């Protein structure tokens, strides 16, 4: 029996590898979604809003200049997530 062909990111979440906005009451994160299930969302190369400006201003700046990386990996409890959408949708 032959090997299966290599397919990158097979059996991953639909948003795996996509830069997403994860909104919680405490903090708004932007990062590449690695895994997500009903327990937790794991993001990579993560930035978050903690500036004087609003979350919307942070997202607009991030959309234009990119994600200012603050942590390599951040795990967010799924129960705390108010929305998880691609960044390109999160700024609309």
């Amino acid at each position, binding site marked *: 029996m032959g090997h299966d062909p290599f397919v990158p990111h097979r059996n991953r979440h639909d948003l795996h*590898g*996509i*830069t997403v906005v994860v909104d919680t009451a405490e903090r708004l994160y932007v990062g590449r979604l690695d895994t997500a299930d009903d327990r937790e969302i794991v993001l990579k190369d993560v930035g978050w809003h903690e500036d004087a400006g609003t979350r919307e201003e942070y997202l607009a700046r991030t*959309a234009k*200049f*990119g*994600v*200012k*990386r603050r942590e390599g990996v951040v795990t967010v409890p799924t129960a705390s997530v108010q929305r998880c959408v*691609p960044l390109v949708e999160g700024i609309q």
Partner: protein
Amino acid sequence: MAYNPALVQPMREEVTRLGVTELTTVAEVDAVLGDPEGTILVFVNSVCGCGAGSARPALARALQHPTRPTRVVSVFAGQDVQAVARARSYFSEYEPSSPSMALMRDGEVLHFVHRHQIEGRSPEAIAAELTAAFDAHCVASV
């Protein structure tokens, strides 16, 4: 950790066969970006299938457009680390991402396409964004 060069080589060739000049050293980057005459598109190539799988075909499609940058160069993220860092120093106001593309003139970024603007989009959609930027900032070839 860098990928096996043999794995990466087809991804390099997918770009260089379009006539794109690949820059693999700091000196090569400085020779091009340090002489910012005309419009330059810098393509930051990448292994990542989520983005680069669309970015390279998008670049190929965009370069068929009659209005194009004077020069098109590439650097390969995760492979030619020093060359990529040097290239990014020329558009340092933008956070590093790969794949990505910077259209520049006279050392100024005219248009930037981040990885997050590539992910999940079709090559046609990305190429349309690129060619719109070419039309806005470049001169049609005759």
